[in-house]
């Protein structure tokens, strides 16, 4: 009964989405205000209906109505309440419903805001076409409310790996980010349709873009953290097609965020900005295609479902339509100006963009290469992890360097004096770091170079802030703290950006450390036996079993000390879930700012001997700290109120 209400909501949504699309188009043709209000009403109604459908599904999951296929496939009665609800996005149909829910609410917010009156109908029309596709897929291809012919009385349970707090936040934030890029895309297309070449669409959608980027950042971050803590292989990123699918729009979205600043300030890069937002949006669709088609081999085993071809068709259609529109309007977007100098802030933005897009292209290339090679030669040739690392590491380092260079150079053109003045302090800091690090034994050339570049960019960013504080102090006569506080809170957009950069640099430090100085060791120990992992001494003390709710866990006790200092007992375990045939690894991590000691309990024998895998991952904690600093910086910049405005335009009169 309740499931029928859910399905009915979907069918009604389908009709209303269609009506909203048609209404928005027709109201423009005939300039019909009443029809526009009615179409806008339809957008609100779709948001309401998607909410009803989602709440119905959540209710069915929470109460364990196993007569509904989706509920019985992804939950069981012994599942903790929390995970019953999060099972909404554990499966295909439910995650599509979540996507649709988010999209329709975003659309309703756009309709309510009605920021650019003549654009709104187009924007809503485009968003509703998008919503129409998702609701069509659910209504006819994979219905989340499908019922079983009988009630099995019990469900199959949720995959243990998804029973983790990280799995709660990761999918939702990724979706909020993915869907968010639809808004700037819709505005960009509306601007093109209306033949407007100004940057109002950028101003209105800036918050949307940053919010989408914020969520996508959080999604990638929590995904990596979940993989590191839960999957138990010691890493956080494997360049798997599904990981790449969420990394690609993040890269192009980051490029877009930067390049629109050039358009805001200098009226340049108009075509490039349109192209970037098209690519970003299409990549979000491509990601959903990749996840649901099974065309690529991924450890995230997808069924080869029929859905793939619908998603591919929609992705290609969106790409072709938007590119065609852009090409048709190219004349209007032509720009008069060019960069005055390679050594200018705007050219550093250009390089930043080229590098981000370069990383995106290389990642995309490696991801789809098996498909290309199969189509061309008939042989599926796969590209392994070292490819991604060897291509993206130099590009990433170049970008890291640019983060430091950009704030140090002036708009338009930097003189030698300006350069010398600004580069002296951070350059000196980086050089001093390199000498000290070398003296302390950091001898791997790649690692030394990478850390030095990161150090340069961190000092440059801090130096930029310090210079601002000194200037403000001199002008206003405030004390240092007041000057710093006011400077930062009154220019939140700018300093929020610097906070994000610092966070990213910390994250990069973590990536460099964990990729260049990691140690790995596998060892079978008897009771009382001791093993040394670098400076750590570990003694295997005990192997035992305990109940964890409905699950049984086998755990090993390892007494860990470093030098003379006792750290404590670490307990890696393997957990047996009643609804799952195989035990899941729960690693034990002793995390410090310097390094993570990461222990996996692999196997045990009747005589009590156990096999462990020990990993020493340097600086990993900085990845998570840096990631959350990025999130903080983004929220700081976004926070409404004074200080969030863009700086002055820097266009030259010619």
């Amino acid at each position, binding site marked *: 009964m309740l499931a029928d209400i859910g399905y009915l909501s979907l069918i009604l949504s389908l009709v209303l989405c269609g009506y909203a699309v048609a209404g928005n188009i027709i109201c423009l043709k005939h300039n019909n205000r009443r029809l526009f209000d009615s179409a806008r009403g339809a957008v609100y109604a779709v948001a309401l209906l998607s909410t009803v459908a989602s709440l119905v599904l959540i209710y069915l999951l929470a109460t364990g109505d196993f007569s509904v296929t989706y509920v019985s*496939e*992804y939950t069981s009665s012994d599942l903790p309440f929390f995970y019953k609800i999060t099972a909404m996005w554990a*499966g*295909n149909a439910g*995650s599509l419903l979540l996507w649709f829910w988010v999209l329709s609410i975003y659309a309703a917010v756009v309709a309510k805001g009605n920021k650019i009156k003549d654009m709104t109908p187009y924007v809503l029309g485009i968003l509703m076409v998008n919503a129409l596709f998702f609701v069509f897929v659910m209504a006819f291809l994979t219905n989340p409310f499908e019922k079983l012919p009988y009630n099995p009385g019990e469900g*199959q349970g949720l*995959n243990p*790996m*998804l029973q983790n707090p990280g799995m709660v936040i990761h999918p939702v934030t990724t979706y909020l980010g993915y869907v968010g890029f639809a808004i700037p895309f819709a505005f960009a297309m509306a601007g093109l349709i209306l033949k407007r070449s100004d940057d109002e669409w950028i101003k209105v959608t800036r918050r949307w873009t940053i919010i989408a980027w914020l969520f996508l950042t959080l999604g990638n971050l929590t995904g990596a953290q979940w993989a590191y803590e839960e999957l*138990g292989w010691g890493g956080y990123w494997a360049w798997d097609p599904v990981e790449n699918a969420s990394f690609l729009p993040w890269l192009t979205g980051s490029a877009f965020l930067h390049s629109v600043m050039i358009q805001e300030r200098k009226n340049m890069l108009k075509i490039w900005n349109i192209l970037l937002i098209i690519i970003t949006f299409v990549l979000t669709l491509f990601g959903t295609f990749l*996840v*649901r088609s099974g065309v690529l*081999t991924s*450890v*995230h*085993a*997808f*069924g080869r*479902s029929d859905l793939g071809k619908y998603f591919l068709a929609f992705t290609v259609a969106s790409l072709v339509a938007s590119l065609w529109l852009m090409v048709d309007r190219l004349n209007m977007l032509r*720009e*008069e100006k*060019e*960069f005055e*100098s*390679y050594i200018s802030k705007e*050219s550093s933005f*250009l*390089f930043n963009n*080229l*590098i981000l897009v*370069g990383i995106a*292209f*290389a990642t995309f*290339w490696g991801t789809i*290469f*098996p498909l290309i090679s199969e189509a061309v030669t008939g*042989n*599926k*040739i*796969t*590209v*392994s992890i*070292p*490819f991604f690392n*060897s*291509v993206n590491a130099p*590009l990433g380092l170049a970008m890291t360097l640019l983060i430091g260079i950009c704030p140090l150079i002036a708009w338009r053109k930097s003189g030698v004096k300006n350069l010398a003045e600004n580069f002296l302090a951070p350059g000196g800091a980086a050089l001093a770091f390199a000498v000290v690090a070398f003296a302390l034994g950091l001898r791997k050339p790649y690692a030394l170079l990478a850390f030095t570049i990161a150090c340069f960019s961190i000092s440059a960013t801090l130096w930029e802030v310090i210079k601002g504080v000194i200037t403000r102090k001199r002008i206003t006569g405030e004390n240092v703290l007041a000057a710093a506080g006011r400077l930062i809170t009154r220019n939140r957009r700018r300093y929020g950006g610097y906070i994000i950069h610092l966070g990213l640099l910390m994250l990069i430090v973590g990536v460099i450390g964990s990729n260049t100085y990691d140690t790995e060791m*596998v060892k*079978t120990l008897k009771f009382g036996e001791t093993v040394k992992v670098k400076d750590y001494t570990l003694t295997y003390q005990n192997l035992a079993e305990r109940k964890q709710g409905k699950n049984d866990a086998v755990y090993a006790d390892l007494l860990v000390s470093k030098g003379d200092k006792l750290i404590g007992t670490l307990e890696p375990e393997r957990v047996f879930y009643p609804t799952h*045939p*195989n035990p*899941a*690894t729960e690693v034990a991590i002793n995390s410090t700012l310097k390094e993570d000691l990461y222990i*996996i309990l*692999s*196997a045990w*024998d009747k005589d009590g001997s*156990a*096999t462990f*895998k020990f990993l020493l991952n340097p600086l990993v904690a900085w990845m998570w700290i840096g990631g959350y600093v990025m999130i903080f910086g983004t929220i700081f910049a976004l926070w409404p109120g004074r200080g969030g405005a863009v700086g002055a335009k820097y266009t030259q009169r010619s």
Partner: protein
Amino acid sequence: MKNKKNIIATVVVVGVLALLIISGMQGNTGRYLTIQEAIADSQRESGKYIQMEAKVVPTSVKWDPKQPQLVFDITDGKQNINVTFYDVKPDNFDSGYPVIVEGKFTAPGKFLAGKVLVKCPSKYEEEAKKQNQ
């Protein structure tokens, strides 16, 4: 010409990118083969990096944690390949899910895996089952 600086910068970056991609592709690619193709291939030449996806023959699994060493056969239902893997047994290995092995043939029918991945029974598993029925 307008935007000359733009174009030069773009050409330079694209050139570097192309070089990086081309050099990155050397030695970091492998062929994705079916069991049948792999067996045919191992007769002719060995030592090339390949990937295969297959089922594990449950009775063939020999796991020696002391080494650690994992030996098992993979099969497509007709032919088998013997795989050796010097690392800990991956999670879910015994669950009957398909595995992806990556590595090289050391002799015909003898495969040394550098990596064994179990296709994780993730959220789309149920769809897969339905498709197979």
